[in-house]
């Protein structure tokens, strides 16, 4: 090999970094076309570089498909040694391709979506930084560098959700995302400290190979639990899901990027990357599976009643991430990663198509005010339809294959858990129902305000082309791994799990396939019955249940009562009593005494040169006599 893989690998990180710098420093002065070209080009070429590295890696024997790329020493202090090092293995490259590939399409789409926004350069600077942070996160070869990416992703999500910071709800949503993510950051930090305390190193190779010896049962459980807290916060699982629906306040491409390519998948990646630690703590893994299944069902039911098109998709993301957690919780790591990939395709597609609707209606996000758009926006309609079917899990679209694997793992695999499996199966039906409902409300139902729809116009090519590319991916992306036929994802990721023999590959079971298909079709049928065009009146849902769902099971109200309000009261009390009464009073007092003292000493500075000379003489005499006396 004349060119080794790590060279291009550095390019994968370097290009988004340069793109960020260019947009951040010069974005204000450069023409928009240049900013767009640089930002999209950086991600696009990074994708090509990642692809090239992957191809070269694929040519190697499986055992050698893990290479370290150490750029330079980072922190060397005594025994504590951490390098700025990156790990290229099937798992990280898989993530790199998803992040840069889907990220690139979203970038291109954003050029059209954000045209005319005064913060164009700032937007693309944040977007590139977001992708860079995510790449650092997935490529890091030690826990500390992972935390850098982890924190960077959190920062960028804050910056982008609050991108339209002049809107109070956007600023609040950004803050909420940041605060909830901080809970996860603390979990990750505690896990890292514990690992360093027990093992004395932070690089994956040492940590993962020595963990079985160095960690006793209690420590292993604690580490896994802290890591799970981090993953749950980042991936918006119960009970820390509250930030994701509010994150819709950002521009739609940001939502697409957060939901599909970056950010929320980081939690799943964390668990898969550090799976040997979770294997040591089976109860925590079971907890992850339970949380995942519960979240999947819970968020899917919430998706049924949302009136904002983006909130439907937000709860959909929470729900789909629940599936991934269920998969990794059942130790079917590659199934989780497969679903991560297909979800990235169809969720990005749904967001881009939904964004096109919002764009066409001049920023309208309320499903009740849409309707009848099928004729006006045919391309968008068909794109959204493909996304809907893929998400519902109808053969042969991508969502079917990955979801089917997860359901097989839960119902028929060696670690099958019937309770969670049935919950996941029910979720599949609800999923089909809520997304079909959104489709019907937006495109089929006769519009309440016909003139609204009449002004709708199809998206420009710069937005339509990435959407169509995602249509292809969402429709056909699942075919890389057809149960019982091909195992591309499992086979590719196999070396990562080989050492621990950790990956549980779900068996192919025809009855699960049939069942999941039936449930999905049932969900579609229910949605059609209730929301099909002629029925204009609101669907009849028991009002108590409706209120429960519309309020998100009152989780927000609970947090507000338990955490937010007492904390505010405490802060106000401290601010009034302690800060003003004690801290300010002390400092003001010191300042006042000093001012008094200075006023008393003013006469010393008389301005008379001869007085100063006298003082000097006095000093001389005192010193002289002191020396003589001694």
């Amino acid at each position, binding site marked *: 090999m004349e060119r080794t893989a790590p060279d291009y690998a550095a390019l994968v990180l370097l290009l988004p970094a340069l793109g960020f710098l260019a947009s951040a420093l010069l974005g204000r002065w450069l023409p928009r076309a240049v900013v767009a070209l640089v930002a999209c080009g950086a991600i696009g070429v990074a994708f090509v570089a990642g692809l090239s590295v992957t191809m070269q890696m694929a040519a190697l024997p499986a055992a050698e498909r893990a290479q370290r790329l150490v750029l330079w020493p980072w922190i060397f202090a005594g025994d504590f040694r951490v390098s700025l090092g990156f790990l290229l293995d099937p798992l990280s490259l898989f993530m790199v391709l998803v992040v840069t590939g889907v990220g690139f399409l979203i970038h291109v789409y954003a050029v059209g979506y954000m045209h005319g926004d005064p913060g164009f350069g700032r937007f693309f600077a944040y977007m590139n930084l977001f992708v860079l942070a995510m790449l650092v996160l997935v490529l890091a070869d030690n826990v500390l560098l992972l935390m850098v990416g982890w924190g960077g992703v959190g920062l960028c999500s804050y910056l982008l959700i609050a991108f339209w910071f002049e809107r109070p709800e956007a600023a609040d949503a950004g803050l909420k995302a940041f605060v909830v993510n901080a809970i996860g950051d603390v979990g990750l930090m505690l896990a890292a400290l514990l690992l360093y305390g027990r093992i004395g190193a932070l690089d994956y190779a040492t940590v993962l190979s020595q963990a079985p010896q160095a960690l006793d049962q209690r420590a292993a459980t604690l580490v896994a639990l802290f890591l799970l807290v981090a993953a749950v916060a980042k991936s918006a699982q119960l009970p820390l899901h509250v930030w994701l629906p509010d994150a819709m306040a950002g521009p739609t491409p940001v939502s697409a990027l957060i939901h599909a390519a970056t950010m929320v998948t980081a939690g799943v990646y964390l668990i898969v990357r550090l799976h040997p630690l979770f294997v040591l703590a089976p109860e925590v893994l079971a907890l992850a599976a339970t949380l995942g299944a519960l979240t999947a069902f819970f968020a899917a039911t919430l998706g049924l009643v949302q009136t904002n098109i983006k909130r439907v998709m937000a709860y959909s993301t929470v729900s789909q991430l629940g599936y991934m957690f269920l998969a990794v919780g059942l130790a079917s790591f590659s199934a989780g990663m497969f679903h991560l990939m297909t979800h990235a395709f169809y969720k990005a597609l749904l967001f881009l198509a939904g964004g096109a609707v919002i764009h066409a209606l001049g920023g309208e996000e309320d499903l009740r005010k849409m309707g009848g758009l099928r004729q006006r926006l045919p391309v968008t309609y068909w794109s959204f339809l493909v996304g809907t079917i893929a998400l519902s899990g109808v053969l042969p679209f991508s969502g079917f294959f990955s979801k089917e694997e997860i359901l097989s793992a839960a119902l028929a695999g060696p670690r099958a858990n019937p309770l969670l499996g049935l919950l996941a199966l029910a979720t599949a039906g609800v999923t089909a129902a809520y997304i079909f409902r959104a489709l019907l409300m937006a495109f089929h139902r006769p519009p309440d305000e016909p003139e609204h729809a009449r002004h709708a116009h199809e998206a420009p090519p710069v937005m339509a082309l990435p959407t169509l590319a995602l249509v292809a991916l969402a429709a056909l992306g699942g075919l890389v791994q057809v149960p019982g036929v091909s195992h591309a994802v499992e086979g590719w990721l196999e070396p990562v799990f080989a050492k621990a023999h950790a990956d549980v590959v779900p068996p192919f079971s025809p009855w699960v396939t049939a069942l999941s298909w039936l449930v999905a079709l049932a969900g579609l049928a229910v949605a059609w019955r209730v929301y099909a065009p002629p029925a204009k009146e609101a669907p009849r849902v028991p009002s108590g249940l409706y209120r429960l769902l519309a309020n998100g099971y009152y989780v927000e109200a609970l947090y507000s009562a338990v955490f937010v309000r007492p904390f505010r009261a405490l802060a106000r009390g401290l601010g009034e009593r302690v800060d003003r009464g004690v801290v300010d009073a002390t400092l003001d007092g010191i300042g006042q005494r000093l001012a008094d003292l200075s006023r008393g000493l003013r006469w010393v500075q008389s301005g008379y040169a001869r007085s100063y000379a*006298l003082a000097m003489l006095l000093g001389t005499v005192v010193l*002289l006599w002191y020396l003589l006396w001694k």
Partner: protein
Amino acid sequence: MEAALFWPLALVAIVAAVAVIAARNAVYSALFMVVVLFCLALLYLSLGAEFLAAVQIIIYAGAIMVLFLFVITLLNPQALPEQEHLPGQRWLGLPLLGLLVLALVAVVASAAWRPLPPSTLPANNIVAVGQAIFRSYLFPFEITSLLLLVAIVGAVVLAQRRA
């Protein structure tokens, strides 16, 4: 020989020094100052510092005191007003000066007062001083030149007439 030179010179120097600070007119002060400087130059000669003695005459008496006289005649200050701004200056300053003298006298008086040992300084003082300056003290010497340059520039800036 040395004693015969020292005592008269010391007496003249002290009397002239007191006259410098006591004279009403600044011109007289300057003239008495020249007398002090001459006495010191002679004492330097007797101490074997011929070069320093020459510098004393040429720089101090020749240049610096002439500069003083220029400024005095340029400004031609009227007699100062009798009003004293600092009434305590005299009553505090004189006792303090007394204490200073007392301390110095105490030190000097308690010493042995033995005659100086025979001089072993180089016979040719000027050559020896020149070699010392340009060898051991070259760096301070160069710094001094810089200091003088700064002083010249400063004086020009300070004394120029502003438009």
